[in-house]
């Protein structure tokens, strides 16, 4: 396995989300649980810290304990990476500033998984807390620009008083207003609240089952009959054969 393959085969949830990287202050990594050099952090991520990590791994090779420890607390990396693995154990679970979740939990489960699956190179790749779904959702994303036609005179007026169509804010003293007009749909029937009509596809299915005419029913009945007969025949024949064999 080459490094190039690695970057292309990162599972989707492990990849950096587009636009999310800007806000990330620092890329954190969890030491690998495997000794395969090919699974080390990708070249693009090399930093002083990952180098020290690599060094630590070389110094403490294939320590049976170390994998366990990492399985328990791989994400509890305090700010200084130059601490020994033993020091990591009592560290307080770090809480992520952005999503308010302990950095530990996600990674712990991931690494224990890798242990179970006999550490295939891809899964054992460090899985930063930042890549977790919970964290990504909490990040401030950049959004696609508003659909409003920029040439509208009404927009020019609002812009001149400081309203930005792409700000995803409404009007009002603190931009607290609704962003989009209220949607409604006309109601012409007398249907009460909460009546659920079967949707189009379901209705069509029903129509299909109702379409059988007498001839088709007869045909179906006959094929059914033939099938059962054949089945019965098979049963009886087998029985007979067994009897015959048993008798012989």
């Amino acid at each position, binding site marked *: 396995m080459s490094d190039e393959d690695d970057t292309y085969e990162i599972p989707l949830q492990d990849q950096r989300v587009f636009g999310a990287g800007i806000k990330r202050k620092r890329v954190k990594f969890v030491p690998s649980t495997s000794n395969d050099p090919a699974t080390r952090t990708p070249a693009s991520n090399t930093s002083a810290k990952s180098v020290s990590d690599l060094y630590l791994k070389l110094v403490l090779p294939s320590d049976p304990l170390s994998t366990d420890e990492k399985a328990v607390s791989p994400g509890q990396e305090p700010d200084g990476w130059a601490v020994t693995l033993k020091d990591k154990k009592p560290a307080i679970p770090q809480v992520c500033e952005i999503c308010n979740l302990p950095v530990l939990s996600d990674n712990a489960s991931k690494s224990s998984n890798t242990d179970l699956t006999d550490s295939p190179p891809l899964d054992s790749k460090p899985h930063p807390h930042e890549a977790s779904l919970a964290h990504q959702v909490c990040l401030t994303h950049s959004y696609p620009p508003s659909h409003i036609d920029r040439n509208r005179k009404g927009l020019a*007026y609002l812009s001149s008083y400081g309203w930005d169509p792409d700000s995803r804010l409404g009007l009002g003293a603190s931009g607290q207003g*609704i962003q989009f*007009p209220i949607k409604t749909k006309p109601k012409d029937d007398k*249907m*009460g609240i909460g009546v659920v009509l079967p949707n189009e596809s379901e209705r069509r299915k029903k129509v299909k089952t109702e379409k059988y005419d007498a001839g088709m029913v007869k045909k179906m009945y006959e094929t059914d009959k033939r099938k059962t007969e054949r089945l019965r025949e098979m049963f009886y024949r087998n029985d007979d054969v067994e009897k015959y064999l048993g008798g012989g």
Partner: protein
Amino acid sequence: MADRRSEPEMPQAKRLRTGDMDPASNPYLAHHYEDEGNGYGSRNGGRNGGSTQTGLSGFKRHQTTAAQADVAENGPLNPFNNNPLSPRYFDILKTRKDLPVHKQRQEFLNMFQQTQILVFVGETGSGKTTQIPQFVLFDDLPHFNGKLVACTQPRRVAAMSVAQRVANEMDVKLGEEVGYSIRFEDVTGPKTILKYMTDGMLLREAMHDHNLTRYSCIILDEAHERTLATDILMGLLKEVALRRPDLKIVIMSATLDAQKFQRYFNDAPLLAVPGRTHPVEIFYTPEPERDYVEAALRTVLQIHANEPEGDILLFLTGEEEIEDACRKITLEADEMTREADAGPLKVYPLYGTLPPHQQQKIFEPAPPPTRKGGPPGRKVVVGTNIAETSLTIDGIVYVVDPGFSKQKVYNPRIRVESLLVSPISKASAQQRAGRAGRTRPGKCFRLYTEAAFKKELIEQTHPEILRSNLANTVLELKKLGIDDLVHFDLMDPPAPETLMRALEELNYLACLDDDGDLTALGKLASEFPLDPALAVMLISSPEFYCSNEILSLTALLSVPQVFVRPASAKKRADEMKALFAHPDGDQLTMLNVYHAFKGADAQADSKKWCREHFLSLRALQSADNVRQQLKRIMEKSELDLISTDFNDKNYYTNIRRALVAGFFMQVAKKDSSGKTYKTVKDDQSVLLHPSTVLQVDSEWVLYNEFVLTTKNYVRTVTSIKPEWLLDIAPTYYDISTFKKGEIRTALERVNDKVKRKQQTKRPGR
């Protein structure tokens, strides 16, 4: 009296003046002193040194007490005009003292005196609308400063009826100390100190008097209804309060979400008066109902058959549905009375467009049992959501709530404002249920499941400002001097797109220039209490030599439908309408009706004439009234009132052209299919409403109203010529801004034709 106003701080002088008609020395009034004097008289005597019993002497502005006011209210002379009080006054006074708000009068005064803005919560029936303004009068004493107290109401009818009621309570003539002001009607005088008015009227006054200097206290009643005008007023008053520290503001709401008002007004103090409510048991259906109207009718009859005495209130969505339901319930109930010995059932409709005297009928008591000892009679009121908060009908014990109401909605993308039947909110449902507990413990039958209540209903009804076309509002705000529409502090700011649409509409109507500043036309248009399109049409009508006719037409378009088409006589009604029909459209037909109505034949016995011709006398009369009011504004604005000679072949053409000047944004062109129309720029497929008289196959029509249903209709249409559009509204009909399509091609062809004509004309000159 006049002197008294100018010298507010001279009780001595006052005492002298009132002294020469001291009622204590009047032998005919002596009995008042014996009757009332024992409790209050002595206290009053103690405070005032016994020199006088009348009026508001000894009252210091914003330092009065409830006890003081009580004394003054007990007469014997009217504290506000020094006339002797009538026996009826004392009768009413007794019932007034029983109202829940009265117990908290002192508490109210304490808070009122200490703060500039006060939020007051009291359920309908607590007496807040009639009593609080009077409490304020006794403490604010507006006449000492030559000012007024204003109390706003969302509905015209409420402003009128409450003013009448309070005038009776204060024993004054309506229009003198107590008056009202609604659109096109002002019943106030120089003596007026308490003015009930629609919220829209106060907003209009603010346009000319940004600081509302005429008023010393402003009470916004029914603020929970969150009408467009109330919302704007709240935003405005928040600013005015800073500029005028002497102005007192009371926000009154009937529902308990008043914390929102409190927060909005910078944590203003809140005073709540408990309503007189009893527990209401709520029932849901186990399954959703396929037909809520039918289910509602069945429920009403079921209640009548099985439940003990008590009146029923059924909420439905609109006039037609209500009238239909009333008919069906009456028929069924008659059968029940005949066959199953049920009690008599009387059914009353209730909706906004119902004439007031018919609205009053809902207060009639339930019918007595048909025979002595027989099953009790019952009253059923079938109403719209008017009955939800603003009207209190005593005796209601059962409420049937199908969960729908008709609500105005506005879609800025296709620029259509319409009334749609929509599910109500949770808050609304609770309010409806509360109606059952007014007199004794009641029951509320909801025609939906509990799960649907929890899941499908929104928490609060969207305030009107989020559901309206804001063109008129923006014009008003600009006139109010509010330019920063982005940061104007509204409780619920509208969607940016809605505001943008409004600004653009005003720009096309030339009410705003390209910088968004009010133009001369815009300023003039804001003088008229009309939609901007109507106002612009009216203002530009002298250019088309038909301002008299357009004035009539504007009035007709501002009142409810003039044509009556009862279900029982549809054919006859249509025949009568055909008598007035003008082949070029409905607006011209309406004008014909009005001219006929003003003719000698009709005026001889207008009631009979209207009945015979299936026309609404009330609508025509109010159109007449509106016309006069508008005429006054036109004269004041120096707009000429002119007409084209009726025999001129251009008489109707001029009117149609003038219509285009206001309604060029509401035009549809026939599709190539020849069946449907497409609206210009918005590309909505529409049909002409079946009620139209338009017979000619007109390519282009101008419409007054877009009716949004699954089939879209345009109602009240007139055929027009595309040349007029290019001529009268060249900026809107700038062909280069149009999308490629039928309409653009058609306009291009017209443009070419016009150009060719001009070219062939020119060499001839």
